[in-house]
């Protein structure tokens, strides 16, 4: 059985600019032990997807479709079921550790809280928390420090320690390398690689950093303007990208000489009627603007582009 099954998930919010269609018909699965990457530009709806799976979005968020964790539908869960789901079921390494850690609480206590939730008393929990922090690379004499005393990379380690301490079935890492400089970024990627659990825990890595995703994930999904446009094994997607957007993304990587993708994604309040990538697409055909393309599946690969998938 899949750990996580997402089927036709759509998430939208009302806003002053109209309805924000942050996710639209998103479908994918994550198996136990699998590391699954969601890759896309900033603002494409990746973070909303991660937060929707924990129901951390504002009350105004509207959901349709299905998202099931271990067979239980997340979207219909009540408060007490959500409390079970959060932490023990799904934990998240939150984006921006500087804002995501409580500034008035020692980091060891912020980790220990996860163990207290699992029934330990505070004293034992702090001991465990110290070990977990050491495990992610925080020196023992720093555990009683406050978040503002740490660098961005160190705060991200604390965030990872919190998520791991919750001992979740699925770990979501939301842009874990965003805002980090070269070396800190490499260290966090190495840490994320070392904590992968190939047997049990699943991992969902949300990132705009294609190289990070390629190095860590078993499978990749590429997101554009709220919908997934390509899903496949990392080797296939990176080695032989099919969707024009994936190709453009790979083209804009430094090692391919930064062939920048012209233009920017459409606002999620005013999506084009046909293919959402069409205005920026090099493979554009006349009929691309009329109907919304469906996911086409072939050889373990799903691509939302009839043009490139035509035999």
């Amino acid at each position, binding site marked *: 059985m899949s750990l996580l099954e997402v089927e036709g998930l759509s998430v939208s919010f009302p806003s002053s600019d109209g309805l924000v269609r942050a996710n639209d018909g998103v479908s994918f699965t994550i198996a136990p032990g699998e590391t699954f990457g969601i890759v896309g530009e900033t603002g494409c709806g990746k973070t909303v997807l991660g*937060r929707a799976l*924990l129901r*951390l979005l504002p009350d105004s968020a509207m959901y349709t479709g299905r998202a099931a964790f271990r067979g239980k539908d997340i979207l219909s869960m009540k408060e007490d079921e*959500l*409390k*079970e*789901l*959060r*932490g*023990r079921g799904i*934990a*998240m390494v*939150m*984006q*921006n550790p500087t*804002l*995501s*850690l*409580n*500034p*008035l*609480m020692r980091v060891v206590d912020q980790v220990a*809280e*996860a163990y207290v*939730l699992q029934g330990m008393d505070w004293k034992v929990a702090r001991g465990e928390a110290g070990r977990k922090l050491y495990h992610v690379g925080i020196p023992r004499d720093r555990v009683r420090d*406050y978040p*503002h*005393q740490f660098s961005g990379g160190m705060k991200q380690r604390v*965030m990872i320690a*919190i998520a791991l301490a*919750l001992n979740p079935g699925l770990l979501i890492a939301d842009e874990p390398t965003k805002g980090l400089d070269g070396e800190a970024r490499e260290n966090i990627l190495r840490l994320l690689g070392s904590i992968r659990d190939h047997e049990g825990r699943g991992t969902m890595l949300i990132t705009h950093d294609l190289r990070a995703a390629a190095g860590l994930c078993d499978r990749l999904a590429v997101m554009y303007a709220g919908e997934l446009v390509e899903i496949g094994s990392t080797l296939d997607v990176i080695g032989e990208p099919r969707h024009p957007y994936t190709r453009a993304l790979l083209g804009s990587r430094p090692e391919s000489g930064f062939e920048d993708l012209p233009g920017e994604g459409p606002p999620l309040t005013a999506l084009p009627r046909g293919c959402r990538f069409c205005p920026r697409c090099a493979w554009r055909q006349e009929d691309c603007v009329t109907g919304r393309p469906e996911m086409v599946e072939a050889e373990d690969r799903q691509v939302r582009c009839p043009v490139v998938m035509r035999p």
Partner: protein
Amino acid sequence: MIAYALKRLVLLGFILFGITLLTFGLMHMAPGDPAFTIAEGRYGTDLTPEQVEQVRAEEGFDDGWWVQYQKWVSHLLELDMGRSLVTYKSVTSEIAARIPYTFVLAFTASIITFATSIPLGIASAVRKGRRQDVAVRVLSLVAASMPNFWLGLLLIWVFAVVLGVLPSFGAGGVAHLILPAFTLGISMAAINTRLVRSAMIEVLSQEYIATARMKGLDDWTIISRHGLKNALLPVLTFAGLQLGFLLGGAVVVETVFSWPGIGKLLVDSIMVKDFSMIQGCVLVIGATFAIVNIGVDLAYAAIDPRIRWDVDA
């Protein structure tokens, strides 16, 4: 933390020095001639200019201001603030007799304020936009808009005149404390409730609250462990100012209820132009205000580690 506290205490020293200069200066710039007032006390209202001059020379009012200031401060350091121009009682002992009343009233009012504004503010923030929130906001707006003297008279009318259950003025047992304390407490609680509410709403939208929810904590733990301390930081500044005003004598309320605190003493002294008593009151009120606010600074540092480290570094 210790270095921070020491720096604050040094600052307090400078502030207190400034307060003595200002108090002294203001009294000398104030209209009215203290020599005249003293002479009136001694010789009656039918004064000759010679009698006034004699008093002026005896009291040292002819010396330069710096000499007078030095003399005044050196007495001050021995806790001697001179004698009342009207009653000839020692200013120090008169003020010392009033301070306990002011302190009791200030602390009771503060307890009433916090015991109501923190739970109400939190409840309002958590149920933002719903019926309880609207009710709290309307009530607090009404209470905050009532002038103290009017609220005091209203409470006197209800509880002393109509119901006859509480005394309307003076000091005595706990019963005398209730009306003035609630008059002050209600109006401060009204403002504080709104402050706590907006601070809590702000905090609840922060990412670290999302982290707390992600962990699977229940609402009560999220609010008490992660929300409250953060939300109280902005409230603390205002609460410090309020306590400072209260300890400096709630002039209006003490007057309405004839509560024998330092605020009432100040008003009475102004009425009879008792310069040395006014000077003493202003000095003590100013010093209390400064000390309370340094206390607030220290409380900030105790709660917020970012302040401790910024200053130590």
